[in-house]
């Protein structure tokens, strides 16, 4: 269950929209931020708020790269695997980060801290290779700087 203040916030977001479903992505994102991922419960709650069927929400949720319909770690690391980053060693960076975390690409660390996913171009191609954690973009990433970044995230959480 989401807290009452969040429900009110979302209700006013929906009321300000041209149609209810225009707010669907915002609603899914808010619920995802609350639960950590878009849980089945969240899909049903979103459907209730938007006056859609859960299936209609599901259809949207599964479409977007950054809506997670499966559990993810506290920090989701998105490593760009598109062309400019690929040309600058993005492929080995992704494998090396997997090695640092001791998981395969697509997995979550056993302590629930990190999920590692490849992703599309992050629009930072001039500073390749690039990765994103939360809202923050990091460019010209090396194995060393990635390792430091992971340590920092571990300390912060």
């Amino acid at each position, binding site marked *: 269950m989401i807290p009452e203040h969040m429900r009110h916030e979302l209700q006013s977001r929906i009321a300000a929209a*041209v*149609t*209810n*479903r*225009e*707010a*669907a*992505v*915002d609603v*899914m*994102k808010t619920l995802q931020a609350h639960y950590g991922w878009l849980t089945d419960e969240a899909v049903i709650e979103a459907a209730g708020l*938007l006056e859609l069927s859960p299936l209609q929400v599901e*259809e*949207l949720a599964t*479409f*977007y*790269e*950054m*809506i997670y319909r499966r559990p993810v770690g506290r920090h989701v690391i998105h490593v760009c*695997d*598109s*062309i*400019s980053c*690929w*040309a*600058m060693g993005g492929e080995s960076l992704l494998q090396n980060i997997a090695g640092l975390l001791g998981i395969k690409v697509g997995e979550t660390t056993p302590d629930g801290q990190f999920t590692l996913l490849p*992703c*599309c*171009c*992050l*629009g*930072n*191609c*001039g*500073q*390749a290779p690039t990765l*994103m954690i939360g*809202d923050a*973009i990091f460019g010209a990433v090396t194995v060393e700087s990635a390792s430091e970044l992971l340590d920092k995230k571990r300390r912060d959480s």
Partner: protein
Amino acid sequence: MEQILLRHNKPGRPVTFYEYSSEGGFVALKKALNTMSPDDVQQAVIDSGLRGRGGAGFPTGKKWSFVPRNLPGPRWLICNCDEMEPGTYKDRVLLEANPYSLVEGIVLACYAIGVRHAFIFIRRGYEQAAANLRRAIAEATTAGLLGENILGSGFSCDIDLHISAGRYICGEETALMNALEGKRANPRAKPPFPAVKGLWGGPTVVNNVESLANIPSIIANGPQWFKDTAATPEAAGMKLFCVSGHVASPACVELPLGMKLGEIIEGHCGGMRPGSTFKSCLPGGASTPYFTRDHWDVPMDFDPVAKAGSRLGTGGIVVFDQHTCMVAVTLNLVRFYARESCGWCTPCREGLPYVVHLLELIESGYGSAEHIAILREHVQHLNYSFCALAPGAMGPVDGLLRHFEEEVREHIVKGKCPCRN
């Protein structure tokens, strides 16, 4: 060199509202609302020769003129800031430095087309750009440059932000309208074209960030001035070129349209990085056929690039050096498109994974001459898809077969990638 869009930039921080306003910002908006009719604004944009900066290069003023003026009900303007085309990062660079010319450009466009309500569709990952825009919208509203009865002219206009959740196809204009409406972002059939029946069934114009951000300077300085900023008489205006890959200093630079490819790479990106020599590049983002050393002197403008067998696209130039395997590059690009396919139509949903499979076979040394023929066929066949994503995906394959067939054959003859030891 004179700059249009990056003129207001401050090192290491976004320009402030005060700075933008005192450096000639919002002059165009005041001029238009005080002295020009909506038709005058549209005509100025037509005369300027401005062509869309989002990839297709459609003349901006002409696009506006397709909107019927007599239909009842609201019409809409959407600014396309989805920018997920690999190798393209110009809209982010622009908005992180200066959100105001876009805001001003949107109000001018809305005035010209008679739009009350505009949306900016922003991709996930551009949160800084979105924050800048949110601030700029608030400041412009406070200053009476946005919202109700702008500058006492009787014209009113609002701008809303829509922050997406990551999916390349949302950048295709009809898919974008579905995404904005909160529907699954599959493209829509055309016709009807968005100008007649778009967002919520109303007439809609979709323009790229860079296209709209250029409008204020056209209105302030006149269409001829804008036109003359280009490097050749045929071209019009400046362009943000974002360069990445194996150059010494990858950068997003604003240069006259029509400047030669070699000049951009040598003169503005420091040439190739140490130890690298130029082999090839994507001239305009991930969907454009490769250029080679033979194209060094091609003027980077829409028609000359098309004449040379590629597309100016987004102006995202991705440079590859002598060690790069062009089969591997093409494989990476088509994999991207296969993953981003929205799955709506069969040629794209089924065809792209097959093309990926063939390229994988060739790259890993299991290719045969027959595969080249099948790839060539698919360059044609994928034109039968529902939207431009799949033909775009085949752009690099087309370039590979036209310029690097020898290299592809070498993979097949040697039974391994010749670029790898």
